[in-house]
């Protein structure tokens, strides 16, 4: 049986095609999901891709979070279905309270677009098992609202439980508290990060490396062995 991984397209999503492509290159069957879908078409996992859904109106992710497709997604994610939120997808996951904290405007107020070095802090999530803890990877980063924020208590809890999944290296690009680039829920099935692993899955494009492919091979292994 092929592993089916869905990628949701909202109005204003940009990186759905690259995410679908990354899924295919990793060896799973990519399934396009539409924001108005009321069910998830029996996919085994979902990627919320990057972009500017609903023009980032109100707050990034705030309107998408109430799209019809989010209803079954939230329910199934809470029941253990793996979900990866990249960039705008991460913002949607925080707005939906599937992950704690919130994303704010970059502290320097500029859009940022560069190759970003990260440290994988938690290789135990559904999306990171093909990495090793402490491994350094490089993937593109491109956003306006990438400053991760949460109250001190939440930050301490995330640190204590090993739920800071990725940290920025070689300089904090946006003022994210404690250099946080991505986090996971306690169960490890829901992961969100601002940088873009789906843009770094082939040597010919992006960073010229395939450091992002591990997200997609990790989830396939997890689902096949489930």
């Amino acid at each position, binding site marked *: 049986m092929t592993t089916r991984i869905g990628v949701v397209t909202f109005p204003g999503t940009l990186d759905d095609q690259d995410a679908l492509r990354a899924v295919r290159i990793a060896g799973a069957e990519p399934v396009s999901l539409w924001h108005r879908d009321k069910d998830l078409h029996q996919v085994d996992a979902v990627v919320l891709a990057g972009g500017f859904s609903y023009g980032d109106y*109100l*707050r990034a992710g*705030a309107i998408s979070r*109430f799209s019809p497709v989010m209803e079954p997604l939230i329910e199934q994610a809470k029941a253990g279905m793996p979900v990866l939120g990249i960039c705008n997808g991460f913002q949607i996951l*925080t*707005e939906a309270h599937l992950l*704690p*904290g*919130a994303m*704010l*405007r*970059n*502290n*320097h*107020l500029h859009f940022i677009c560069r190759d970003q070095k990260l440290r994988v802090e938690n290789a135990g999530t559904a999306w990171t098992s093909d990495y090793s803890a402490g491994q350094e990877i490089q993937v593109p980063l491109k956003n306006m609202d990438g*400053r991760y*924020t*949460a*109250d001190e208590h939440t930050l301490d809890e995330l640190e204590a439980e090993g739920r800071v999944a990725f940290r920025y290296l070689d300089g904090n690009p946006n*003022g994210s508290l404690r250099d946080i680039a991505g986090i996971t829920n306690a169960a490890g099935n829901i992961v969100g990060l601002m940088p873009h692993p789906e843009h770094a899955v082939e040597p010919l494009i992006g960073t010229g490396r395939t450091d992002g492919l591990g997200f997609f091979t990790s989830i396939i292994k997890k689902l096949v062995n489930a």
Partner: protein
Amino acid sequence: MARVVVDVMLKPEILDPQGQAVQRALPRLGFEGIADVRQGKRFELEVEGPVDDAALARINEMAETFLANTVIEDFTVKVEEEK
């Protein structure tokens, strides 16, 4: 129709670089004496029917779940005079 205004502001402990940028621009434009600026959002809701306790409770719920993200923002709800 009655108007209800929802003001949304970043919580005091949250850094507001947009407000800071505005504040820094003021002296250059000849506006002195402003020590701090914080930028927020104002929503003007034209309410159909009476603004009674039930309507206000719904608007509070709307503000709490949608208009504001209470992880980072505070909000106030004010009823403006009938026009």
